[in-house]
Structure formats: C-alpha cells, structure tokens
C-alpha cells in the first residue's frame, strides 16, 4: 500500500504511515466514521422511505390529471372531498376523454387479540381499470361483487399469508368496520409512514364501510386526456371552467412531487430526518477532528522539524487531507455495510420501502470525504503550534 500511495502521490504517504502507525487509534477512528455514516444513512434511508411511501399510491394512477379540493390538498390521504359535479364539468372539455372519482377513507383493522392495523381504503369504480396501473385493471373487475376487497400483502402487524390464495371464486373472509368482507385478490403496496396497509374496494363497498360518505363527494377525481393534449394547457383551461378556488388541478406527477416536497420540508418528520442527517454529519466531523487533531498534536515536533527543513504549508495541508480522505474512504465501507443490514432489518420488520440506492451511497461517500476534509482543515489550526525555532 505504501508503494502504491507513493506512486499515486509522488511523495511518501506520510498521512497513511502516521495513521497506520497507531492501529488502535486508526480502528477507533474508522469505527467513528462508520458510526457517523450509519447515522446519516439511517436518516437518509428513512427520509427516502417516506418519499417512496408517498409516491407509491400515486403510481397506482394512470391518467394525466388529478383534481382535488384546494383545502388540505397537499397530501393524497388528507385532502378534503370535492363535489362529483367537477368530474362532469371536466368532461365538457374536448381534450378530456374520461374521468373517475376516487374515494379514500381510513379504518382500523383488528385482526387478532392484540393486532390492529390502520388501513387506507381506496374506493374505485370496478370498471375504471384503464385509469389505474395495468396490473390493477383485471383485479379491479373482481371488485364488482359487493363487499369484496383486494388486500395488501405488505400490511403491517398482520400475518397476510392466509390471503395468498384469495381469489374471486374463493374469497378469504375477514371482518373490518363490523362488516364481513371477502378478499378476492391481493396487491403489494405497503402502508408507508401514514398507515399499515392499503386495501382496494369498489365504490359501493366503500359506502358500506363508510356510510357517512356520499358518492357525490369523492376524495379525488382522475381525468384522462386525449393522447395529443397538453396536460398543462388543459389544466389551465379547466380551471377557467370551475368557480374560482374550488379545485386544484395538477398532473399526477406534479401532485406526487409536491407531496414529497411537502412531507420532506414542511412536515415534522421530514425536518426530523434532515436534522438527523445534520447531526450525523456533525458527529462525523467531530470524530474525525478529534483523531486528526490528536495526530497533529502527537507529531508537532516532527511537523516543526519539517517546517525547519523548508516544507511549505501546502505540504502539511496535503498530509492532513491525505489522512482525512483515508479515514473517509475506509470508514465509509463498514458504514455502508451496517446501513444495508439496518435497511434490510427495518424493511423486514416494518414493510416500509427502505433500501440503498447508488445515488445515496455516492452522495454519502462524497459527504464523508467532505466532512473529514472539513475536520482536517479545522485540525490544521494546531499546526500553528509547530514552531521550528523551539526545536533547538
């Protein structure tokens, strides 16, 4: 390694030699950097998982525009209802080829003595398959039978294996909202951070489960447009059709992106994750600083000797940055491995969509190099104590 680094740097790798000269201290430093990496990865993983959880329901939708009430319209699940009349008004537009209402409600499913799960229900028209993801089109038809549901195999706190064989000809019965339903199929959506699972039912079954809700007031309206239509233009023209401030019209992608941004920047959970990332960075900087500054202090006479010999400041900066980058580059990998294990464990235990992405790994690696370099720059202040005249 020394020969390789000598060739790479064109000089003796003094930083590397200093670090490896004290293996115990090096191991402690690497453990510290890895720990800080795990902290950052965990926070970024949870934040990414939340963003992914937010996005998953939107991915069920195929069409171009999503019409919601302007009240509480930042999230899909919390939006206020709007009159179904808005759907009929939209159909007047020549570029709107179809539309369907979506009804959303939440209920607690008590599936055992101690097990209960918060379930997000989507009430959909069984013949509205073309408005939804291709994989849903066929199963939706099976919801034509009253009091049937497509249940989420990723539902938390429930053993969903008994639903694996659910089929329209052999519904698996279960009870929710004091009503007997039959699972006629399964979907794999996951509840994310807002609930424990997602069940799809027909609009009629939805009104059985939520009798206080009316077909006249859906939660959202999906609009499909002509193939050549510009969604932005149609949305603007539709807005003119409606009374002012009665609807909010966006493309599905826009709505998804805005909710992700809202959850990440305006909701406490997103801010907590961001704060956690900052804490992880600070911990990493502090640990790396402690190691590097202790190393500078231990070698202050040697540095003073180098100063006496005529080495310039850039040489010392090079040594300390070399140490910082070595700490970052080596400490990153155990952090990555432990974080991956953490993700897998958390995903297994909670069914939340948490996984490592190459972009995140690269970003954290660059962040680690940056944080350790900042520590190195801070540690350089101790070099001022290296006074060559004091050597005699």
């Amino acid at each position, binding site marked *: 390694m020394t020969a390789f680094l000598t060739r790479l740097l*064109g000089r*003796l790798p003094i930083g590397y030699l200093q670090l490896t*000269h004290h293996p115990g201290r090096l191991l402690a430093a690497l453990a510290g950097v890895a720990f800080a990496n795990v902290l950052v990865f965990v926070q970024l993983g949870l934040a990414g998982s939340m963003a992914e959880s937010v996005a998953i329901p939107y991915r069920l939708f195929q069409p171009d525009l999503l019409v919601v009430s302007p009240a509480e319209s930042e999230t899909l699940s919390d939006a206020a209802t709007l009159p179904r009349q808005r759907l009929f008004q939209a159909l007047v537009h020549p570029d709107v080829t179809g539309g369907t209402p979506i009804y959303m409600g939440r209920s607690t499913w008590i599936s055992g003595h101690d097990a209960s799960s918060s379930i997000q229900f989507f009430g959909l028209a069984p013949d509205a398959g073309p408005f939804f993801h291709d994989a849903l089109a066929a199963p939706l038809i099976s919801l034509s039978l009253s009091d049937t549901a497509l249940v989420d195999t990723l539902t938390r706190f429930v053993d969903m294996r008994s639903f694996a064989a659910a089929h329209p000809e052999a519904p698996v019965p279960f009870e929710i909202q004091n009503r007997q339903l039959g699972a006629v199929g399964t979907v794999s959506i996951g509840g994310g951070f807002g609930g424990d699972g997602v069940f799809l039912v027909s609009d009629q079954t939805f009104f059985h489960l939520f009798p206080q809700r009316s077909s006249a007031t859906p939660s959202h309206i999906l609009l499909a447009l002509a193939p050549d239509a510009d969604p932005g233009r149609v949305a603007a023209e539709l807005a003119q059709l409606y009374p002012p401030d009665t609807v909010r019209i966006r493309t599905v992608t826009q709505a998804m992106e805005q909710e992700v941004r809202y959850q990440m920047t305006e909701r406490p959970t997103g801010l907590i994750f961001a704060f956690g990332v900052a804490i992880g960075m600070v911990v990493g900087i502090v640990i790396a600083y402690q190691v590097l500054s202790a190393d500078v202090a231990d070698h202050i006479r*040697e540095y003073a000797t*180098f100063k006496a010999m*005529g080495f310039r400041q850039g040489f010392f900066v090079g040594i300390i940055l070399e140490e910082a980058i070595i700490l970052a580059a080596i400490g990153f990998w155990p952090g990555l491995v432990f974080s991956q294990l953490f993700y897998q464990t958390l995903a297994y235990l909670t069914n939340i969509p948490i996984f490592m992405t190459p972009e995140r790994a690269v970003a954290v690696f660059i962040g680690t190099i940056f944080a350790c370099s900042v520590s190195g720059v801070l540690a350089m202040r101790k070099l001022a104590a290296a006074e060559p*005249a004091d050597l005699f």
Partner: protein
Amino acid sequence: MTGAAIEVRGLDHFFGEGEARKQALFDVNLEVGRGSLTILMGPSGSGKTTLLTLMGCLREVHAGSVRLLDQELFDADEATRIDMRRRLGFIFQAHNLHDSLTARQNVMMGLQVHGRGDQTRHALVADHLLDLLGLGARLDYLPANLSGGQKQRVAIARALVSNPDIIFADEPTAALDKVSGLAAVRLFKELGSARGTTTVMVTHDPRILDLADRVVTLEDGRIIENRIGTLQRDDIAGRK
C-alpha cells in the same frame, strides 16, 4: 559573492513585549567562512541557540544584519526564509525523527523538500548515505527500534542528504559514542573540504573542539571569545 557563508553585524535580539521584553543578544558580530566548521559554546542561556536559530532562518531578524549565503535576512519575509532553509541542513539534539517513518524514509524527507522527484532514486541516495554512516542494516527500522546513537546518525543523514550549503547542528554528538561522534564531525569537515559545506555547531563536547576551525564563546548574549580553532592554528603555524 563574499568568502563568508554567514556574516552577522550588530545583531540584537529580544524576546517578549513591553515589561516582559528581554534582550537575548547584544551587538553580535561574527563571520563564518565557507566550508569551515564553527563551534558555538557558552553556558545555558548565553544566547548561542538564539544565534543559531537566527542564522538558520528560523527566527526573524529584527535588529542588525545577518547575511546568509549573500542573502540579507533582516526583515526577510517568511517565504524568503523558507527558501533559504531549503539550502540548509539541521541536526537537532533530540533527533526529531518521524516515528512512523523508517530510517530510509526519514532521510528521504531531506530530498523530498526539494520536490517530489523520483522516489526510487531518493531511496537509493538515502540508502547510500545511511550505509556510509554505518546504518546499512537498519534501513527499514522505525526510530523506536533504533538506539539513541543510531537515531542521531539518521538525523545527520537527513540533514546531509540534500547537500546543504550550511549545516546547523545542536549537540549532534551528544548521543554518540566517542568513535561515532568523531566520525560524524570528521564527516562534516570532509564535506567542508570537498563541497564547501559550512557547519555551525553548538556543542559542549570537548572531544571535538580540536577539530573546529573557529570556536565562538557566548555569555549573557555577547560574544566573549572568538578564536581560531586548534587545527587552524596549527595549519597557520605550519605555513609560517
């Protein structure tokens, strides 16, 4: 270009500020010839180390004049002093070897200060010099595994490896036995004859006084004696 490697004129030096200001050197005048071996002597606190650090560009010259290799150091900026230090070799009493570098690597640092260069060649030069100093079998030893005398010889090799114009040494023979100490000083003398390398050395070692071209004694910040060394005297007497 003059014949002197070092010319000191009317040099005063102070430490501290205000009430705590203390004068360490008083009107020091000294001329050190090129290729000579000069020994600075004097009791502790006499100012010899201060004089050494001023001539070695390790401190700023505030009053008086120090010309080193024809470069005036009075009010010289840090960059100039660093450039000058690259032409010098330093040997410290407490060798100050880098504990995580081998003997060879410590010596290579003396070459690295002049640029990155060919590391393989640097290693060969370092090996050769260490071999000359009797450390050919200790090239890959860390300082912790070397005796005090061996460490000092590595420090000497580090100072000599870049062919400095002037060597400043503080008790370089203190950790060496009689034979090694004399061998080291003879090496300085040979370098003076062969390459014109000037050596200024602080020492209390009476064994090497006879080898000096000039012996300068300081007391209370003043030069109280500046005499030609024994060999030089004998040489002059012989010529007469």
